[in-house]
């Protein structure tokens, strides 16, 4: 086996693990980092995105359109939830945990009652390609590209648009922003909708590769929380590098000793980071800068 194909294989595995972490955690990071809300229903928004995508594909729509519809659906449900429940709980992060946990139970059990315990899958598009002795899935490369694009688009949205400015103003000093005429309620609602929509996008993107069940969000939620905790409050200098570090750790140990070791290594890495950098990677990077 030549070095080129071995290197590609290794990078592919890191990219795959990191893309999963990025996609799993951005929605959660937006809601936590910008609003201080700990959203335990994150996994269920992912599930809504996946189900919405699968339903749209079965209705005959092409996959990219279906994924867009799935994430829009999750986003709209997110805004409704924000208006009904979350908007009463700002500044009470512990209460949001309980409330969103309850919402997550209602969503997953409600889906189980309405749509049954399993749902026909979508099927992965594009097939595979070979490098050296190994074959790889094209769609996994699409997922990696989607993770990078998502980070870039989010950066543009927060730093280069009017919504981004208003959102940052609202998050920094809410009453000042309100005094200057910003409709903070709308901003909060949109931000939560954005977080839910990003979760839905993740669900839509992973729907073709996974078994569709009402509890499918739970396979994302551990990795999502771990990445956000390691990253700290900032999405770009926190979540992204955290996904990179954890992705490398997981890929290295999984290729060495299998999935179990990979998971153990991931969690040990999390404990080490939290012990050494209590404010996460972004807190540490900000401290180094100042």
């Amino acid at each position, binding site marked *: 086996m030549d070095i080129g194909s071995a290197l590609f*294989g290794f990078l*592919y*595995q890191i990219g*795959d*693990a990191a893309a*999963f972490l990025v996609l799993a955690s951005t929605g959660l990071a937006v809601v936590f980092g910008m609003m201080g809300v700990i959203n335990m229903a994150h996994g269920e928004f992912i599930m809504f995105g996946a189900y919405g995508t699968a339903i749209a594909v079965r209705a005959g729509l092409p996959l990219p359109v279906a994924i867009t519809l799935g994430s829009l659906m999750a986003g709209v449900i997110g805004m409704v939830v924000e208006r009904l429940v979350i908007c009463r709980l700002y500044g009470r992060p512990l209460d949001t945990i309980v409330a969103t946990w309850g919402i997550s139970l209602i969503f997953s*059990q409600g889906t*189980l009652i309405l749509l049954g*315990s*399993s749902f*026909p*899958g*979508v*099927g*992965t598009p*594009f*097939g*595979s*390609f*070979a490098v050296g*002795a*190994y*074959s*790889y*899935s*094209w*769609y*996994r490369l699409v997922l990696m590209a989607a993770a990078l694009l998502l980070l870039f688009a989010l950066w543009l949205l927060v730093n280069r648009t009017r919504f981004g400015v208003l959102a940052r103003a609202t998050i920094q000093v809410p009453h000042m922003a309100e005094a200057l005429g910003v409709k903070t309620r709308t901003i909060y609602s949109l931000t939560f909708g954005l977080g839910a929509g990003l979760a839905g996008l993740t669900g839509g993107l992973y729907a*073709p*590769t*996974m*078994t569709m*069940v009402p*509890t*499918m969000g*739970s*396979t994302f939620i551990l990795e999502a929380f771990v990445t956000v905790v390691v990253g700290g409050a900032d999405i770009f200098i926190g979540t992204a590098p955290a996904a990179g570090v954890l992705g490398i750790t997981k*890929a290295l140990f*999984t*290729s060495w000793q*299998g*999935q*179990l070791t*990979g*998971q153990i290594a991931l969690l040990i890495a999390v404990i080490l980071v939290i012990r050494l950098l209590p404010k996460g990677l972004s807190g540490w990077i900000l401290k180094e800068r100042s």
Partner: protein
Amino acid sequence: MNTLANLCTFSIRRAAGARFSAVLALFGVLITASLAADPIKIGVLEDQSGDFAPATICKVHGIQLAADEINAKGGIAGRPIELVIYDTQSDNTRYQEFMRRVLQKDKADVVFAGFSSASREAYRPIVDQLHGLCFYNNQYEGGVCDANMIVTGAVPEQQFSTLIPWMMEKYGKKVYTIAANYNFGQISAEWVRNIVKKNGGEMVGEEFIPLGVSQFSQTIKNIQAAKPDFVVTLLVGTAQSSYYEQARSGGLQLPMASSVNIGQGYEHKRFKPPTLANMYVTTNYIEEVDTPESKDFVKRWRAKFPNEPYINQEAENSYLAVYLYKEMVEKANGSTKIPDIRKAIATGDINFDAPEGKVTIDPKSQHMSHTIYLARVNDDHSISFPKIWPDIKPYWLGEAGADLTKSNPHTQYTPSNPPKVP
């Protein structure tokens, strides 16, 4: 007795209110009415929600179908069957709660319980402690040697001693196993390892996957690196079943051998073809089995449950278990007491013409003989049966020296920890 006393004080305390005593009197009438009919209570503890639900809801339906059929023909020894059903939610602690409840409060004569081996090992000590009788109607890793347990599911000597040699002859001797990382996967993988070695093959890899893992890129690469002739997949649960889609789209198209897929989770119906093409499974029943008995069974089932997604092997095991219990009670002259039932089992003459073929309970292990069907998944996800082995016995425990008619060790043995022969 304690509960009866509690009930009395309860009713006396409440009797102060006239309305309550009227309600109680009504209950009294209902209780005497049902006492006159004197039903046999079958507790049913199966997962109707959670991770395992797609494979296990039909087990409840199988029990309901059998109970209806038996009740329509006069019940067990003239007594109707009453089902007490709880949803265990794919959660081991629920099994423990409900097992206590169904034995102590509901006073079930027999309990049909459990899908995963972890759940069985969670409730089994409670069955032993409360001297209950429990049917485990599920294929599993084998070795449970416990007089309070009757197992109708297939065991490794039935599924692997048929499947693995057949696969090695057809595809080659290099084998890679991926298995769910808990007692079922570990012990099944041990069986595969031993059979491969005995037949002159080589294990080129073995990986245990934690339950709940849904991303398999690295596992797929590890398999490709080891270059096996076929892969033994012993994955469990909906998260792990994402493997097949990812393996296919990753270009891994090796033949697969399994004891859990198709026969439980009907993956060939749920996944888009050709994700599972070229998978071989040994199962004691699936709805595609093409015999008159099986077709008639499917017809009766669909008449009662028209929306059933699939009738899997555990559905058939659960169905036939009710008939086997009927056979036991009737052989015990209508007694549901465990010593009488065990005497009936010890005769070695408890059998039933099930949809799969004739099945018999082995008195030494209280496991069951099976017809084993080798099911192959074709490119369009239809099923063909390249081979059928009739009357495969659950021989391992007996050959290893266990004999429940003589001693009751309440233990689960494994090939590396066999019974100690005196």
